[in-house]
């Protein structure tokens, strides 16, 4: 298909430069300090997979503690050393460190860097028709700051006082005072350094994504013709750019409080037998600053997954995504609202209850655009012609998880109900489904769907099916029971509940069940890992457009080089969702096919566009319309 549109030759000045660049590419410039967005995307993906394994493994350790508190786990001593007590139990402080690092790793290193980093980098230039990112160098820096951040965070797992242990939100004073918990010593310092580097990486990446989407779209690729993936990545980057600096500020003030004796967050503290001199600070201030990022962050995590899902569902249902405008509108709505709902994490933090009312109102409003998304996905499936690729299965899984986890948000967003549910397992169930699992499923959908583009080979579908069904059943078996445990009032971040009669004698069996389900689900991920790495080297060669998709990335060579298209960049003539168009011979019409070539399927308006195309020698297309 792609050959048709190269007729309008638009020579890119970079092109030759790129071509001869390829001749003296060394191993280092190709795989390590690369400026090619595709390779950088893969670097983010590999690092993300590494972190996902670490984050998942940490959760298994504390799940074993929760499921089988009486078990002798001395066998972990070769790995965990002194963190296993002489009685063969997990150290309670290390339990908190595990919970903290699991959260930090999953939210930031896997679902932010591993998801946005991978797919924004890989897909933005390919889907908008650009040679590369606006700044390849900044893009490279973005990865290497992330790498440096990863090294610091990973090292903190091995220090004597243990990694940060104040929960992934690291609320002061706990995180500010070494006397309060050993993890708040060197481990916390490393956490803050790693996060600072991470924020730099995110900002470098985000600026690049935004600039690239605005400036480097190919001929004819108006905003109204952008695939929803790109819309999602674009809006995600804007949210990140606006919110991460606030986290940076919060972290900086925390560093001051920890090391330079300031009192931004500290006041009236008596600890370790002495009254500290700091007065006038407020721990609640930190919470406001943290959640000003923290809440947008959950949308930073889920929105790219939405984008991927929209694209995959539309392609494999062989139907246009239902309500393209509403899908973009709901992304914009969610993005805007995500900035003004942060204090719903703080209903019982002691802040003014009136604020609680306001934030409850705004929070529940956010359910409306979310509901629109779900209904639009369902309608896209309705009367479709569904091909169940592994990517499609994971996308459908995402919709289910998003419904299940999203609905419990309506409980938690209601401040009156939240009084009881706050910081119980109900919250754990909620965000693991709606943010954790749903975003993870989006990431998996993306990996399966774009694997052929990334590596030029097909990933094995059957293993993909097995992986999907085990994971889908698995995450529900792990996280759904937590709702009941939460309704019964079990607080989160508890090493054991046996100190309380209220929480003893019930649900120990359910907790054990959850742990077993978690182990099986984790084990199932090795099916994916095997399939992934095996297929990179030994998978069947991919055809150019394996899913019969409309978007631009499938017009590149099977293994695109630096610069993506060997000849001119293709021109775009239509939106990306012309699937199963009445009258058309095939059930898809790529974006590069002009209306003048498809008279049989054009609407009246599109025929007018076709006439315009002819006038301008199939070159200029009116951007105002789709």
């Amino acid at each position: 298909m792609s050959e048709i549109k190269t007729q309008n030759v638009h020579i890119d000045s970079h092109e030759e430069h790129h071509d001869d660049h390829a001749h003296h590419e060394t191993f280092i410039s190709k795989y390590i300090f690369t400026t090619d967005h595709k390779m950088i995307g893969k670097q983010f993906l590999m690092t993300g997979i590494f972190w996902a394994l670490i984050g998942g493994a940490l959760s298994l350790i504390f799940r074993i503690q929760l499921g089988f508190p009486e078990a002798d786990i001395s066998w972990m001593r070769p790995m965990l050393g002194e963190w296993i007590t002489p009685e063969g139990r997990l150290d309670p402080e290390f339990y908190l460190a595990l919970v903290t690092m699991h959260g930090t790793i999953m939210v930031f290193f896997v679902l932010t860097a591993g998801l946005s980093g991978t797919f924004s980098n890989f897909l933005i230039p390919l889907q908008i028709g650009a040679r590369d990112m606006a700044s390849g160098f900044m893009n490279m820096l973005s990865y290497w700051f992330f790498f440096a951040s990863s090294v610091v965070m990973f090292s903190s797992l091995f220090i004597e006082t243990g990694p940060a242990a104040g929960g992934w939100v690291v609320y002061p004073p706990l995180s500010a005072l070494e006397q309060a918990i050993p993890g708040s010593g060197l481990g916390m310092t490393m956490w803050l350094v790693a996060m600072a580097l991470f924020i730099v990486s995110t900002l470098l990446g985000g600026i690049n994504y935004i600039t690239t989407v605005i400036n480097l779209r190919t001929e004819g690729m108006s905003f109204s013709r952008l695939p929803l993936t790109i819309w999602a990545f674009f809006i995600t980057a804007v949210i990140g750019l606006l919110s991460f600096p606030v986290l940076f500020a919060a972290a900086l003030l925390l560093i001051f409080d920890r090391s330079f004796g300031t009192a931004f967050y500290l006041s009236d503290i008596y600890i370790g037998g002495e009254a500290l001199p700091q007065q006038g600070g407020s721990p609640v201030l930190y919470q406001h600053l943290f959640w000003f990022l923290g809440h947008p962050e959950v949308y930073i995590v889920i929105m790219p997954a939405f984008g991927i899902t929209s694209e995959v569902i539309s392609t494999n249902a062989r139907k246009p995504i239902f309500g393209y405008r509403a899908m973009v509108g709901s992304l914009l709505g969610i993005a805007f609202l995500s900035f003004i709902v942060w204090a719903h994490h703080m209903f019982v933090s002691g802040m003014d209850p009136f604020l609680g009312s306001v934030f409850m109102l705004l929070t529940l409003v956010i359910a409306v655009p979310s509901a629109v998304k779900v209904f639009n996905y369902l309608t896209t499936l309705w009367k479709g012609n569904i091909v169940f690729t592994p990517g499609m299965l994971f996308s459908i899984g995402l919709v289910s998880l998003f419904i299940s986890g999203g609905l419990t948000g309506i409980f938690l967003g209601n401040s009156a109900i939240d009084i009881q549910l706050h910081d119980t397992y109900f919250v754990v169930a909620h965000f693991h489904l709606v943010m954790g699992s749903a975003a993870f499923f989006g990431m998996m959908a993306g990996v399966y769907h774009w694997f052929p583009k990334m590596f030029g080979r097909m990933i094995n579908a059957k293993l993909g099916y097995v992986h999907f069904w085990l994971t889908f059943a698995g995450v529900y078996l792990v996280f759904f029971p937590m709702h009941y445990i939460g309704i019964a009032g079990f607080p989160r971040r508890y090493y054991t509940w046996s100190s309380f009669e209220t929480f003893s004698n019930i649900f120990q069996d359910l907790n054990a069940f959850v742990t077993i389900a978690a182990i099986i689900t984790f084990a199932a991920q090795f099916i994916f890992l095997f399939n992934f790495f095996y297929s990179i080297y030994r998978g069947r060669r991919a055809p150019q457009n394996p899913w019969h998709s409309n978007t631009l990335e499938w017009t590149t060579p099977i293994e695109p080089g630096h610069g993506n298209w060997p000849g001119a960049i293709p021109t775009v003539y239509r939106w990306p969702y012309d699937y199963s168009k009445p009258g058309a011979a095939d059930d898809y019409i790529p974006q590069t096919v002009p209306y003048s070539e498809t008279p049989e399927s054009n609407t009246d308006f599109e025929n007018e566009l076709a006439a315009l195309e002819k006038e301008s020698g199939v070159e200029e297309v009116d951007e105002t319309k789709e």
Partner: protein
Amino acid sequence: MDNTLLILGAFGAILILVILITVFRVITLVDVAKGSDKKRASGSNFNNALLMPIFGLLFLGGIFYYSWASFEDYKLPVASDHGVKTDELFWITMLVTGGVFVITHILLFWYSWRYRFSEKKKALFYPDNTKLELAWTIVPAIALTVLILSGLFVWNDITADAPEDAINIEVMGYQFAWGVRYPGNDGELGDYNYQLIDNTNSFGVNFNDKAALDDFMPLKLVIPKDTPINLNIRARDVLHSVFLPHFRVKMDAVPGMPTNFHFVATKTTDEVRSETKNPDFKYEMACTEICGRGHFSMRLEVEVLTKEEYKKWASEQKTWVNMNQDYFTEGNGKRFELPKLAEEGQENEEKLSVNAAL
């Protein structure tokens, strides 16, 4: 012995891996031989489509069964005025969201099966429908407005100022326990300052304040039934959070920023004991804000008595001043105006009876 097991285990794992890889190779080759890898949608498409409604059935069935069967386990007895209201909101929300949950999931799994791929048919080109989209924007918006409003009324009631006649009880969180302080006779809690805290005077009470002289600090939280209680909450070191699960009470304890939560207990401990047929039942207070190593063990026993029993109990409590006279003669307490204190403490002790407001 251990090593043998380890070696056997490793061998087993490798063996399983080898078998799996072989099976995988065979399946791949069979696919290539049958040419099914070239088809748009092979037999797997049917199987995956079929698994969708089966999964949906097991999923929804499982949830309904378990929610029904273990209701007694997760339903926590409620013992406060406002708790009844928030529980009601909880179940109303459950009804609304549960309906949406079931319907959307039925559609999701049914469509997946019903509209599976077939070479013979073509999907419906259906890019938008403004009316439909408006409908499912407006209907959820209305439903949410109702939920928001009902929540708002309850929330405003709960967080309104404590009634004048409420008993003020101080709850202080520290690593890793709770302390409680009662106002004593005068119904007023004495001043405190964190810089006055020492090993004995763990609340940092300022005993130069007369109101402090009759304060007492028992080892559990005891409250009367049907009486407004206002918890004055603070923390000494890091964040903690007061959680009284049966009373649906939760409020963070923040160093440097006192918070409060008021509520009315509706059932005495004895009443719940007979109601649940559990003679050992005890109300408890837990911590729900991560606070360090002992976070999971910050338990405080809570007891609800009838008004009469409470009066009697309170009148039996000795003031802190009375119980810690050494502190004022020998310890750090010397810094307070001692002779006068001893006198008044004595006096108070004699007069001690419960607040007339009761």
